[in-house]
């Protein structure tokens, strides 16, 4: 098993690990700001089209959104357990838990794909392609355009996250992580949690309220 490499700028492996995690949190902060613009647009357009937005929310496919919430929360749980296991040296268990999270991520995307199919059939498409009878208003159009852009961006991040998780799982049996040093493993899980946290805000504003 290859030993972890200590960069010459670091005094110890511990410092290197903490710094790698800190860098990841900084990156997550930047991702939060990336999504924030989409929330800003929602807030502004909702204040302009209050009634149309409420109607559009109620016309949305709540069952799919809620199912996806449970899927992502569970995947967050499994990936948290993965870190728990790698910290105690149970590398195999950690790998399977990461794979389980990836599988749940794929489930999320599958449900999303079916849901998008429903939207397409109903005509709830973005911009000039919109012809959804249940929310046939300008505000409804704005809502669903934002919905497609926001959930599309989120789905892209889920896809990226699945790739990151698979890459991480791939490297477990190759000895890349040890019980005492595994910052990149933790960073991968942090990214996955972030994807879940974003959904925790997307779900209520597009499906519930």
């Amino acid at each position, binding site marked *: 098993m290859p030993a972890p490499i200590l960069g010459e700028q670091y005094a110890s492996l511990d410092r290197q690990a903490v710094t790698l995690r800190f860098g990841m949190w900084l990156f997550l902060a*930047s991702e939060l700001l990336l999504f*924030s*613009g989409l929330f*800003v*647009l929602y807030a502004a*357009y909702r204040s302009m089209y209050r009634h149309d937005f409420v109607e559009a929310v109620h016309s949305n496919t709540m069952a799919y959104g809620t199912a996806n919430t449970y899927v992502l929360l569970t995947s967050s749980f499994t990936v948290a357990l993965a870190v728990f296991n790698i910290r105690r040296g149970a590398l195999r268990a950690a790998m399977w838990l990461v794979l389980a999270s990836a599988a749940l991520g794929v489930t999320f995307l599958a449900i999303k794909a079916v849901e998008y199919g429903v939207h397409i059939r109903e005509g709830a498409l973005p911009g*000039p392609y919109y012809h959804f009878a249940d929310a046939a208003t300008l505000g409804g159009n704005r809502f669903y355009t934002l919905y497609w852009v926001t959930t599309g961006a989120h789905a892209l991040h889920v896809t990226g996250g699945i790739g990151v998780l698979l890459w991480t799982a791939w490297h477990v049996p190759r000895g890349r992580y040890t019980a005492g040093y595994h910052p990149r493993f933790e960073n991968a899980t942090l990214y996955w949690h972030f994807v879940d946290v974003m959904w925790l805000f997307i779900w209520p504003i597009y499906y519930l309220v």
Partner: protein
Amino acid sequence: MSAPAYREQSSIPLEAVPPTEPSYLDGGGLMGWLNTRDHKRIGIMFYGAVLAMFVLGGSFALLLRLELLTPDRTIMDANTYNRLFTWHGIVMVWLFLIPSIPNIFGNFVLPIQIGARDLAFPRLNLASFYVYLAGSAIVLGGLVLGGTDTGWTFYTPYSETTPDRLFPVVFGIFVVGVSSIFTGINFIASVHMLRAKGVHWRRMPLFVWSIYATSIILVLATPVLGLSVLLVGLDHVFHLGLFNPASGGDPVLFQHLFWFYSHPAVYIMILPAMGVISEIVPTFAHRRPASYNAIAFSALGIALVGFLTWGHHMFVAGMSTIDSGIFGILSMFVAIFSAIKTFTWVATLYRGDISFNTPLLYFFGFLFLFMFGGMTGVAVATQSLDVHWHDTYFVVAHFHFIMVGGSVTAFLAAAHYWYPKMFGRLYSERVGLLCATAVFIGFVLTFLPQFLLGNAGMPRRYYSYPPEYQWLHVLATGGAWLLGFSVLLAVGNLIVSLRYGRRATANPWDSRSYEWLTPSPPPPHNFPETPVFDRGPYDYELSQEEVYARAYPR
């Protein structure tokens, strides 16, 4: 001014700085540079790329100023003119100013100033360079394909409907933004985690504080730019009408998104410049800063409060008057921090033992121009006045006083200040002083008339104008060409001196800041042996001998 005014260099015997292996410049061949992890080499590579962008963006400016010599057509048609001012803005903002001081001097100097052997994430640093190159190539490719005429601000709905090739340009900007975010993450992590023993937060050189504050903006503001330009691109390609009133969209919302980044972006451009000044003034006054805390904390103040002011770009865009009022007040607060810094720099000079070198001459230019720019900034932040000045040359003059009179001047100051450290040579002091003077004169001639133009009602971005404005335009064009020529000469001095300059010692300016503890140029690992940091970086009460003896105890 005929005396060389270098602090006499031989006061420190070279043996006091332990002899070491070859410098970071040697060895490895071409691949050793292209595949480097060394923050110093990456800084130099950025230097080349960024200077090329500066020349490109500057050329666009010189051409459009030629067009403005006469009230009607001079050398190009209106369409080309619209493209030129757009490209000038895009190249100068994203391909030159944003990366300039942080990616060149921040990369080179910051790790040494915290006593580290490299940044936290060296490979991410190299990636930031290649991502910058890729983004620049995409942007320039878009320009070659005809580019866009929307202005660098891409306002909707025109940016949605313009027939030009918008998408490559905005996508390239998105990619360059990714490079910025990588850079910011690297700097923040390094400052938190890699400071050498003895380099406490309040013992860091002030340049580090300013780069740290800049990095907060880089990490938190740039993603919003990424989103806004991507949305414009999507809108353009798929006609989503996100910001188009015909589809129920609101164009002002795009402006909120755009300026949420682009206002803090101007602090990305000025904070590093202020950091450079905060190093130069103590060095050439041979005095510690009048208040270290004032400069350090005002940098954080600018970075954070700067996020709260973006609406002052939209006073006449249709934003509500209540929101405008809030933004106007918040914009006034930001100016306080800049004023604190300015007073502190001047107070540092007082009773100092001043060496009148090229970097300090650039500082004097900076001082006057930044003051004018800053005060006119407070003026346009006043809603009632901005109604008159918005979208006129008054605003153009204001921001060029800051971005050129401030940032570019400080960039040139940094280029001269750290030149001996980076290349181990000295430039021609006489040419340096001459160019600093010429840059100042050229600048004033270019942009002071523009305040008058704007106040008299000349709108910005206009191709043609009534003849009574011509004399001011002619002055501005003359000044612009003098400015361009002076900058080229200044850079030429530095390039020629790479070969023909006298060899520099470790500390030609007799500074106490930490980067001067290493040889010029430094070895690959920055320090021959890690120095002992038991003093601050501005201890001018100590002599050079004492400083080196304490850093490298035998």
